[in-house]
């Protein structure tokens, strides 16, 4: 079986995405997002589905929550040894699943709530997030058969090969409640079938669900890899996640600024802006030229305390946003919003390149 990224295999795909967000921080059970993504069944083909949920681990909210696939026990042993060498593990368990007729060939799926060992941070002179990011890269690159697919605090990614609604049922998501949910149904144009290749893709608390096929992939990949990232899956989602991590976490850009890099306004649009805006937009486009993403995409980026939805600047993929009270919705199709909230206060199709950002209680967009 060919995994994404193995032997240079790159698998572009079409998809369905959906996101639900409570601006007041109300915790919403997981069946709602399943209902939303289910309606877009036709946009997936059963070769991958997944979810990201924020606020689901309140009891471990200060611990990094690692979700890991193991192909075999040996990998688990090797990975756990590596984790124990670097982390104080507060709790670990298999992730609860239920038997599902449409989900098969499941790997071992474990989760760990852990905190980096202080001494490891000091000896490397880095902060815990950088440390965790390096650990994730190390495990995913060097420990054969182990794959960390979720690594943020108070956030969890759940994904598998299958239709997303089946994946949701498999992971018993109705038992989780979170203030922010995103979901992804995959329609890869090739036959993979590796669980790690499903979406969302996550690093730290950044999770990305993405529908599209970016044409700038290798330009983006070769640029971002200069900064210690290793694009092992060769998927768009992976590189987008790294770009966001790089721009937001490492360069300290706000979400809007990040959007103006990856879906930069056209020069002709920049030319019409005020002097100050023009200077900044030109600066960002020039400095991060290699991070401009072209080709069709719609993404929902989840982060602690918010989500951002963004289309490519030509809006080559459908994406609709809606609001009702404290609830915000984003999905590939309006139906996926209407099915869970028929009576919306507002519904609109965001323009290409225009980020739609929702945060808890209107808080800072910036995610540190």
């Amino acid at each position: 079986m060919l995994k994404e990224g193995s032997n240079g295999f790159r698998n572009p795909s079409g998809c369905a995405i959906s996101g639900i967000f409570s601006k007041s921080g109300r915790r919403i059970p997981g069946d709602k997002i399943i209902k939303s993504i289910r309606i877009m069944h036709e946009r997936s083909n059963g070769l991958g589905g997944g979810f990201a949920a924020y606020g689901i681990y309140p009891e471990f909210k200060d611990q990094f929550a690692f979700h890991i696939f193991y192909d075999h026990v040996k990998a688990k042993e090797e990975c756990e040894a590596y984790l124990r060498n670097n982390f104080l593990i507060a709790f670990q368990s298999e992730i609860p699943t239920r038997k599902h007729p449409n989900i098969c060939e499941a790997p071992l799926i474990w989760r760990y709530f852990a905190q980096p060992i202080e001494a490891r941070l000091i000896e490397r002179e880095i902060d815990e997030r950088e440390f965790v990011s390096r650990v994730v890269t190390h495990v995913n690159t060097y420990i054969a058969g182990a794959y960390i697919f979720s690594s943020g605090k108070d956030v969890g990614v759940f994904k598998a090969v299958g239709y997303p609604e089946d994946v949701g049922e498999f992971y018993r998501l109705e038992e989780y409640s979170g203030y922010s949910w995103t979901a992804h149904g995959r329609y890869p144009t090739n036959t993979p079938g590796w669980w790690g290749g499903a979406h969302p893709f996550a690093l730290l608390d950044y999770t990305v669900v993405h529908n599209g096929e970016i044409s700038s992939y290798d330009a983006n990949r070769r640029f971002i890899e200069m900064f210690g990232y290793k694009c092992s899956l060769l998927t768009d989602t992976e590189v987008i996640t790294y770009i966001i991590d790089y721009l937001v976490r490492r360069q300290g850009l706000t979400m809007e600024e990040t959007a103006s890099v990856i879906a930069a306004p056209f020069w002709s649009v920049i030319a019409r802006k005020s002097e100050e805006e023009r200077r900044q937009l030109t600066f960002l486009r020039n400095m991060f030229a290699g991070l401009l993403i072209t080709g069709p995409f719609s993404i929902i980026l989840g982060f602690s305390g918010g989500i951002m939805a963004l289309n490519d600047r030509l809006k080559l993929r459908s994406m609709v946003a809606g609001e009702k009270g404290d609830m915000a919705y984003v999905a590939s199709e309006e139906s996926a919003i209407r099915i869970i909230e028929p009576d919306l206060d507002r519904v609109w199709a965001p323009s290409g390149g225009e980020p739609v950002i929702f945060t808890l209680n209107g808080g800072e967009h910036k995610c540190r």
Partner: protein
Amino acid sequence: MPINYIYPDYEVVRDSSRCITCRACERQCANEVHSYDLELKCMVSDSMNCVDCQRCVSLCPTRALKIEKTTNTFKENANWTQSLITDVYRQAESGGMLSTSMGNPNPLPVYWDRMLINASQVTNPSIDPLREPMEIKTFLGRKPEKIRRDENGRIITEMSPQLELNVPIMFSAMSFGSISYNAHESLARAATKLGTLYNTGEGGLHQDFYKYGKNTIVQVASGRFGVHKGYLDAGAAIEIKMGQGAKPGIGGHLPGAKITAEVARTRMIPEGTDAISPAPHHDIYSIEDLRQLVLSLKEATGYKKPVFVKIAAVHNVAAIASGIARSGADVVVIDGFRGGTGSAPTRLRDFVGIPIELALASVDQRLRDEGIRNNVSLVIGGSVRSSADVVKAIALGADAVYIGTGALIALGCHLCRSCHTGKCNWGIATQRPELVKRLNPNVGYQRLVNLVTAWSHEIKEMMGGMGINSIEALRGNRLMLRGVGLTETELRVLGIKYAGEIWS
């Protein structure tokens, strides 16, 4: 009667049934091939002096002329080819090095032609440049490593000096002296009109062209001809020429015959003296010395202008480029071994250096491996022949390309490789006034503008086909290239997959 070992390579063929004896061929041939025979009342030719520049053919109003490769053949020998044998005769006669000009004509691999470009189908829409914006604006210059903010949290947008190009194509260095005043004017005006840059080469900047300074790269080469404060200040950027693809490792020699009063004044040397550029810069024997020159030039110009460092593509080019990227230079220029020249020893031109495609791929990868690709922009030259070559160069990782030979061809050059004789019938590589005037810059500049405009359209079409609507998304996007007819090693160096291999 001495033995004449050399038979002309090309023969003038005149269709006397079409010749109207207008004598345009005679008047236009600086090599004095054609003449009118008063007794025979017809035109006659002596092919011995013909360089196959095609001037007469192009001007003949009745198409009565053509130039044919001679069929006079030495006994066939795959090892001792006719041209090698002829070269031996020449050297046995002269005792000197063989001289030639323009780019390497030998059938060495052209990697551009072995790379094919991708296009979108179904999963990712191609983009129509006639309907959607298609951006090829390019900035050259060092990029900052970190975002910095002021006390109000605003991003500080000051950065190292940048050049803004409307097209990722510039005109490469060709000195006034090696090419004519009118050729320079054509390049300068075309660069201005196109919103790109041309390069003075090492011959200084004629005072008439200071007004095109915003679109001028002023070169500082080993001879330091024409270099002074005003010159450095005049350009938008400064290029230190360490080497040239056509003749890596050696300097230049502009014969006194080409040092006319204007050339002499511009170069700041006496009229009629040979202008000899040393092989190395005698103040640069190491990378540290280069850094000093880079910084000296920046100091001299108030840190307002990006400094380019141009090197020939040689075996160790990646490491050298890496050194330059850390020298304070803003742009690294790599010139491939198929690049042109106004004059070079034949053997050097043909056998020293490496192909630009491989050099570019290796330099770009090396700079990324070291995480310093953003420290410098990467410009390449040395036989970029078409818009497809430009697209491939950018996909391999170049920020922009230099075109020299292509620009000269647009001006009329037929690659007769006789620049060194100074008798360019197209008014390009000559200083003889009656020949120089043959290149009307009003025409020449428009032809250059047309060429680059046409290439821009083609680049945009190809980008659109790939689903890319901004050149930066093409830069280094090697997934967009596939190889054909290449070995594993070549593919590895180029960093591309073979055509038909699965997506990667």
